[in-house]
Each structure stands twice: as C-alpha cells, then as structure tokens.
C-alpha cells in the first residue's frame, strides 16, 4: 500500500523535474552561448608564462651561475641574503635536506623543492618582489643557476636552458606524495572518553597576542 503511494509520488516528482528542467531553457548546462572572443595560442603568449615539471613552457635562452651572480646580488640578495640565507623573515634559499626530519625543518629550494623548473617559473612570474616579470629569460636562467649552485646541486659553469633545466635532479625530488583522501580517523565517543585532560600549554604564557579587547 505505502510502497505504491511512494511509487506514485516518485513518478510525480519525476514528472515535476522533467517539466521544470525544461524551463527556462537557458539553465541547460550544455547550451552554447559564444559570448567569449576566440583567441589563438599566439595571442596568449605574453600571459602564457607557466613552466611545468617536464620543462614545457621554458623559453629560449640560457644562463650559468657565474652569469647569474651579479643579477642575484643586485636584485635578490637584499631579501634572501648574499648566500641565500634569508634576511629577517624573508625565506632562505639554501638549506640542508637532512633538516626535514628534524624538529626545526628548514624548507628551502635546496632541501625541499622537488623540481628546478618550479624555481625558474617562480622567479619568472613573481620575482623580484615588487618588480615582477621584469627579468629577461637569460637573467632568470642565470639566477636559477646561481641559487642551484649555492645549494651544490649544479656546478658554477653548468649551462641551464630549456633542455638542461628539467633534467636537474633536486635532492627532494621523491619527497612528495599525492594526498589520497583523509589520513586521520577519529571516533565520536560521548561519555567517559579516554582522553588526557591535563593542560600542557597555555597561550597566556606566550604573550604574543593579548586578547583583542580595547
């Protein structure tokens, strides 16, 4: 009895959906409007700056650490330090791969970054900080080479270009795993749960932020 009522209701709701999804017709997700303007990949070139881990997108040009050094010292060292050690809170570029398992990991280009192409891409798109996208491809190759050489990943005279850069093997190349679903399982115990309730750290002891009361 109930199940037949349910069937009728289901049929009715199906009819409702069928009726309403037809109107208005513009809500159909497959309708093509063509409000955009066609472009060719050539038109896009000035914006198409991304470089992939396989080197796709690297421009023509080349550089060595030697040629990159004066550019680095003039345009990068003020924030990152003459030796890539990082000034103030600006990031260090040189670091020890072994630090990643320590209490104070030093995540730098040398210790952490998996691809040299990312370094080229990032300098090219975002550096120098405050004057982005101002370096020539040769300068970007040179600065990339200088930072890699400071990390002892390449030699001072290694020539980086679209062919050689993707082949540079970074120390932490195999350090990443693609997240697959959640890695944490918790239960929702309601009563007499076995938890530690001793206060082990208190924010008032740190005084880095008082409360925001006026």
């Amino acid at each position: 009895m109930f199940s037949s009522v349910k069937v009728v209701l289901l049929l009715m709701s199906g009819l409702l959906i069928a009726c309403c999804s037809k109107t208005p017709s513009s809500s159909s997700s497959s309708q093509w409007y063509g409000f955009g303007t066609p472009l060719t990949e050539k038109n896009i070139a000035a914006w198409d700056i991304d470089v992939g881990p396989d080197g796709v997108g690297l421009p023509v040009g080349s550089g060595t650490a030697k040629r990159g050094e004066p550019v680095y010292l003039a345009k990068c060292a003020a924030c990152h330090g003459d030796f890539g050690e990082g000034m103030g809170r600006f990031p260090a570029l040189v670091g020890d791969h072994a630090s990643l398992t320590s209490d104070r990991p030093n995540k730098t280009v040398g210790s952490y970054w998996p691809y040299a192409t990312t370094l080229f891409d990032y300098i090219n798109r975002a550096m120098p900080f405050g004057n982005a996208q101002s370096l020539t491809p040769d300068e970007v190759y040179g600065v990339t080479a200088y930072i890699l050489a400071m990390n002892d990943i390449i030699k001072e005279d290694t020539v980086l270009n679209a062919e050689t850069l993707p082949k540079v093997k970074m120390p932490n190349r195999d350090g990443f795993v693609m997240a697959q679903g959640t890695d944490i399982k918790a239960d929702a115990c309601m009563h007499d749960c076995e938890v530690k309730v001793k206060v082990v750290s208190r924010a008032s002891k740190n005084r880095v932020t008082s409360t925001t009361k006026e």
Partner: protein
Amino acid sequence: MSKRKPASVPPQQGRRGFIRNSLLGGLAALTAGRFGTAEAAGKALVVPAWSHQLGPGVVTNPYGKPSIFEKHVVRRFLPWIRPTREASISFAPLQDLHGIITPNGLFYERHHAGVPPIDPAEHLLVIHGLVKQPMKFTLQDLLRYPSVSRIHFIECAGNGAMEQHGALNNGLQFTHGMLSSAEWTGVPLKRLLNEVGIRSGAKWLLAEGADAAALARSFPIDKALDDALIAYAQNGEMLRPEQGYPLRLVLPGWEGVANVKWLRRLELGTRPWDMREETSTYTQLLPTGKARQFTFIQEAKSVITSPCPERPMPGKGVFMVEGLAWSGEGKVKRVDVSFDGGRNWQQARLKGPALDKSLTRFEIEWTWNGKQALLQSRVIDETGYVQPTYEQLRKVRGTNSMYHNNAIHTWMVHPGGEVENVQLG
C-alpha cells in the same frame, strides 16, 4: 531642562559601558530572581538625545558604514608572522560576528603581492590549453551568462598553523580568523568549459591571478566540472579588491589559496604544474620527511566563538555557548560540545540551515557553576568524518605539517570568567 540633558555617551565608552551594564544587570537579575531587583525597577528611564533630535539624512554616507560604536570590529594582523604586509594575512574578528555570513569589509585577507588595482574594463579571463577553441572573456561577457549564487566558506590552509606546537595566540581572531564566508555569485566553471570545449586528455587546470605574484595553482578537472565557480560578486555586490575584484575562482570547501583571486587565466593540461604554492608551500611535511601534496580539502572543523578570550564569561549561571562548524566535504551533520576537556560530550543544536561547504552555527545552553572548565566542540560532517583531537592529528602528521590544522580546540574558563587558549595532553 536638566532632565532633558542629552544622555549620549562618548563613543569610546559607549559600547563597553553598555556591555558592562547589561552584564551587571544580567547578574543582578540572576541573583534577584525573574523580575530583577527593586533598585533596578525603581530607577526612572531617561529619554536619550537621539529621541529628540534629528539624525543625519539619507546619503550622508552614500556607501554606508557600521555604527561608530562598532569600531573595534576590524580585521587584525600580526606583524611578526610575515616579512611584509603585501605578503601577509589579516584575521577576521570571528568573536564579533553573527550568523554564517562575513561582512565584506571583514573577510580575512591573504595576499602574496598585495592587492592589484585592477580596472575591470581592462581585465580578461583567458581559457586555453587543451581546449577546442581558446577564448577570452571580459567581465561584461561573463555577466551575460546564467549565474548562480551559493554560500560557501573560504578558509586558509594555514588557519591554526601557529597553534601546531602548542597554544600560542590568546584570541579567537588569531587562532581561527583565517576563515570567512560569503554568498558568491558567478558563472559555473563547467559552463565556461562548455563554451571553449574540453579536448580529450585534459585532466588538470592551472588557475593564475593577475597580481604581481601571478599566483598560480593546479587543480583536477573533476572539481572544475563539479562545483567550481567563476565569481564576480560577494554578498550582493561586486567582489572586494581584497577578494579578487573583478574575478575570483571559488573552489567550494578547498583551501583558500586554491580559490585564486584576480583570476586572469585558466589553462587545461594533462598533469599538475607543481607551482611554488603547491610544492614549496601548502604541502604538509610529515615526521617521516615526506610531504603530502595537493591536500585541497578543508576537512571538518569547529570552534566555540562564545565564550572565547575576547568574550569572557559574564558570571555564573545560564550561558548560551555558541560556535561555528564547517566542512569542505559537505554539510555539517552534528556538533558536540564538552565542558570537561573531552571526557563527556553533549549534542549541540544547529542554528539555521546546514548548507553544503558553508559555515554552520551551533549553540548549547550551559549552566556555569563558576569553577574552572575546559570547553571544546567537535563536528561530524555528512560523510561521517569526525573532527580529530590534537593527539590524533599529531600522531599522523607530527608538529611540522603547518597546514590543515583542524584539531579540536580547547578554551579554559577560569573561575573569574576569563577564557584562555590552552592545549591538553
């Protein structure tokens, strides 16, 4: 004449005075029973000045502002956490907000190269790569498409990162304020991909901003075809510059950085691009030395917003404990609250609608006996995911994973009513 003297108070004292008085009134009412004290009842009411005089007329503020008594409700930042303001974070004042929408002027900020002053007439969205026809869209083009409006939270993956080694910031604004929520209006990305036509082999997209960081992130095409939105409006008005004016990618429930602001380009490709912001940063370093990459989802999390360090207990007696819960996986199903550090839990009421990937408010009545208490909240989302304790989280991720700290948070209520951020173990 003297009894008609304006009763208004200086703005800097007004609100706090009001709170103090109402708190005292509340306490008095508690001790004196349902109808208050005779003293309170006997005090004659005063007609305030604003009931006599005309106020400012319409369009005094063509774009309105909050009351002058709400000046303390602002975004705040911590100068010591980042090298410059242009690559920094500001925190939303969650302790002063209500409901599930963050006012546009209070939405948390995270910029990597400051806010670009984009002229919408010169801004373009380019879609190219593995598509049948690369296209550019102006804002005016996008406004012609059928739009949708949806309420979603955005949370920085780094929200709570400062608390990973132990309780650090003594304020809700700084422990949880990299979280905001808005009604976003725009064009489903799926519709624009239908315009350009997806070529076979396209598995990932690169989204890139027009700021001086050209901030870029890869994301899988499944999300683009699911609920990704090219948003141009936020809470009924065009996006705020700080939120990506004139265009922002909204990837509901996913870490804030992937919701690329000032969106200028989408490229379709076969694999992720391994950009700086998905390798060097926004990856979770585990105790083994390996790092989890592409941890997009903001898993279920909750926090009690009242009381909190900024909102201490007014006194013993009945108090409405309130908070926020959210999940990047869907709807909030249940929130439990503990007053004894997680030993025993009670189910809280969900207030208003529990929307998909949206902030959800909860509340529970608590009769405080004036003694020290350890308050916690714990959310369960519609997938059955249970918000973990710090112990459970650290067991897997250690204390250097930086991002996606969604652990159960503890407020210690002191006998004096002050509330402190603490961690248990």
